[in-house]
């Protein structure tokens, strides 16, 4: 039941893009086409899950026992940068097809604040799923990371669909490009607001 609440909350109620504003830059950058949006969502999902797992372990078994929590920001960003590099090298070796599908999105992910955002959230925020407030354990953190990135993918793919239609419409000149995109995301966020209070 608790896992179910985490999943619903992370995908719909506290959608990482539409309610928490994490990862907006790549979202606006690659949501022009449905295919690139799908590729980016896949890459983000993979990296967020992996990064959350590694940073959770580092935080719990290294930083906390040594009382070095203030180094979280530096340690996490280095781990994420190294991880992205490693994923790139490994994928290139074992799965060239997937590598070329994710292609240019992988290096971009280092500066996607969704990755660092989720990594910091799971080790600092007190959640109230299933009763009293507590920090997430490893299993819950992984579920939270996967669900959050699914929410990211959902918003991204939905919006790419909308944007493909927008491109064919006659938009006033000053609204062209990003302004109309932002206003459409706003309306989409309004729709997602309807989920609030569910969990």
């Amino acid at each position: 039941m608790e896992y179910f609440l985490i999943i619903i909350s992370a995908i719909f109620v506290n959608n990482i893009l539409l309610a928490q504003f994490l990862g907006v830059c790549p979202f606006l950058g690659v949501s022009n086409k449905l295919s690139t949006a799908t590729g980016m969502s896949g890459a983000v999902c993979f990296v967020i899950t992996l990064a959350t797992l590694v940073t959770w372990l580092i935080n719990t078994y290294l930083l906390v026992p040594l009382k070095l929590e203030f180094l979280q920001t530096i340690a996490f960003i280095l781990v994420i940068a190294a991880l992205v590099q490693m994923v790139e090298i490994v994928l290139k070796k074992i799965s060239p097809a997937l590598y070329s599908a994710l292609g240019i999105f992988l290096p971009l992910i280092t500066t996607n604040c969704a990755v660092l955002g989720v990594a910091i959230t799971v080790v600092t925020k007190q959640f109230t799923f299933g009763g009293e407030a507590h920090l997430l354990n490893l299993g819950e953190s992984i579920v939270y990371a996967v669900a959050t990135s699914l929410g990211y993918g959902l918003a991204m793919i939905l919006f790419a669909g909308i944007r493909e239609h927008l491109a064919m419409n006659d938009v006033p000149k000053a609204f062209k490009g990003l302004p109309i995109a932002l206003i459409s995301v706003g309306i989409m966020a309004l729709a997602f607001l309807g989920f609030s209070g569910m969990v």
Partner: protein
Amino acid sequence: MSKFSILTKGLVKENPTFVLLLGMCPTLATTTSAINGLEMGLATMFVLILSNIVISLIAPVVPDKVHIPAYIVVIATFVTVLQLVMQAFTPQVYSTLGLFIPLIVVNCIVLGRAEAFAGKNGVVDSALDGIGIGIGFTLALTVIGIVREILGSGSVFGFKFIAGDGILAFVMAPGAFIVLGYLLVLFNKIAKKQ
């Protein structure tokens, strides 16, 4: 480029928010009120100026292949300094801005200026660039914050001048996207004369 134009180009011509469209996450997330936007802008400016200064000093000796990781470590160091200072002196502000203080590390404005300006220019110019871009960012965030606060709660910097509740949606997530969208339209109309 003269010192004066380095300092002032971030205000309108190369405004990081309205022209370059960088650092969207904090722009959208922390502008629920004018004062929050102002505080986030100042926090980013602090990191921007100091990281620009240090990066312009170390850039000549950093090998080209590892310059991005090196820059990120410098930026992350100043973000940690900022976190500790804010926790000590302004814990209230720190808890309001929350996650978005550590996330200054991945703010593309900071790394962008390091890569595009501080890595290639002297210390004084880089510091001026940091100040200019920082002021431009702070200004943009404050303007967005003012608009959202007026619409969302009928006040500016906490001074209430419209009685009753505002349009709550403008304080919440959808308002951020919509206000930024319309401000961009206005900026296109006025500054770019489209």
